[in-house]
């Protein structure tokens, strides 16, 4: 769900007009009649509370985590990429698992994750800090879809996407990763090849760690390899993958 729409709709539902900046409040605000100071409205006994002197608000509305989004690009650029991930339940004859929460995160075209910078200051416009991370809820087919950019790579790891699957109440079911197919015609080779430089992928494949040498995938790539990654540089790539959990 688009967060902005959520906010807009939420505010509209409450009948709130945009609140004018308070910078010139002294000359504009004529509605303050109480002499109470502070913004505390919770004091007082009985069922009534004192009117606060500062116009209270903006009234907070329930706001989902900024992780909850399908388009996770943030401010990152690169080759267009769509990830379609199906979640199936081993404990239910491998049927689709609906209502599961799926977090994914991956690095940008240069190999950087959004937590770079650790606990330093961030801005309320989070897209420069929280990028390429998202959370979606599986539909009746067990499917979540994310719109992103094709992941880059970094030293000692093959191209990969991290996935954390929770049940609908947030209990962890599985933490895993998705590996990418390799070979001269593969998306990984094409994006990191000469054609990808137009899109800012400048690392090439020299020093790349292939799945067989990757210490996460070397013993498990058979079931962590994406079922398919197809497309083109100009049209973007689509990854399809199925993950089995015990729910």
């Amino acid at each position, binding site marked *: 769900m688009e967060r902005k729409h959520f906010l807009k709709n939420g505010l509209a539902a409450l009948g709130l007009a945009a609140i004018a900046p308070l910078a*010139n409040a002294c000359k504009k605000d004529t509605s303050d009649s109480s002499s*109470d100071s502070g913004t*505390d409205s919770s004091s007082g006994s009985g069922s009534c509370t004192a009117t606060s002197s500062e116009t209270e608000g903006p009234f907070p509305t329930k706001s989902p985590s900024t992780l909850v989004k399908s388009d996770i690009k943030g401010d990152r650029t690169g080759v267009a990429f769509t990830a379609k991930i199906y979640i199936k339940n081993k404990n239910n004859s491998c049927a689709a698992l609906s209502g599961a929460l799926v977090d994914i995160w991956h690095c940008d075209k240069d190999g950087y994750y959004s937590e770079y910078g650790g606990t330093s200051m961030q801005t309320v416009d989070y897209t420069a800090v929280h990028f390429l991370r998202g959370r979606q809820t599986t539909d009746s087919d067990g499917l979540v879809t994310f719109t992103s950019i094709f992941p880059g790579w970094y030293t000692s790891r093959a191209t990969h996407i991290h996935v954390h699957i*929770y049940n609908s109440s947030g209990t962890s079911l599985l933490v895993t990763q998705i590996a990418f197919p390799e070979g001269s015609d593969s998306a990984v080779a094409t994006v990191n090849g000469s054609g990808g430089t137009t899109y800012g992928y400048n690392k090439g494949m020299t020093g790349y760690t292939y799945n067989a040498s990757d210490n996460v995938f070397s013993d498990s790539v058979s079931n962590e390899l994406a079922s398919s990654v197809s497309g083109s540089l100009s049209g973007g790539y689509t990854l399809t993958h199925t993950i089995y959990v015990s729910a």
Partner: protein
Amino acid sequence: MQKALIRLCYRKIIDSSATRPWDKFVFEDSYTEFLMQSQLYNQEKKYTSFGELVMHVPNAEKLHFLVSAAVIGYLQQLHGKIPDLTNNLGKLFLPFKNFRFEIINSDIKDKSKHQVAVNFFTDHLIWHDTINNQLPLSVPGNTENGEILTELFTLPPFVSIYSIKPVD
């Protein structure tokens, strides 16, 4: 005195005693997100407290950042004004765009131990003078008929001057 450009930092601590709606949302949603995200660093369920996780699990301090995603929506709802801190007229006035979210304590088995802080950093303010314990400040560009509008502000607890830069 010489005028200076300053930025204030307000460390707003939110815990289970929160009563205001905004504070309660931040408390509840940051705890839910902590429960979810901490499982990545606690897959054998060996630890219950945030302190143990940070001490024993590599990279668990990333939880500060990861959990912050749950509160950014509430920070945006403040429309760029730091909450709680008012000028001498009782008005919110401190502009901010930057913040740092921190988990102070938490526990996956005991919600009452969950305690977080939002550090708000103001945009640049001009500090003109000091009158007793009050600072006449102004927000750059905030003028009326060629006069600089000022705000009289008393430094309360949990507010510090984060940075200072002398100006002519």
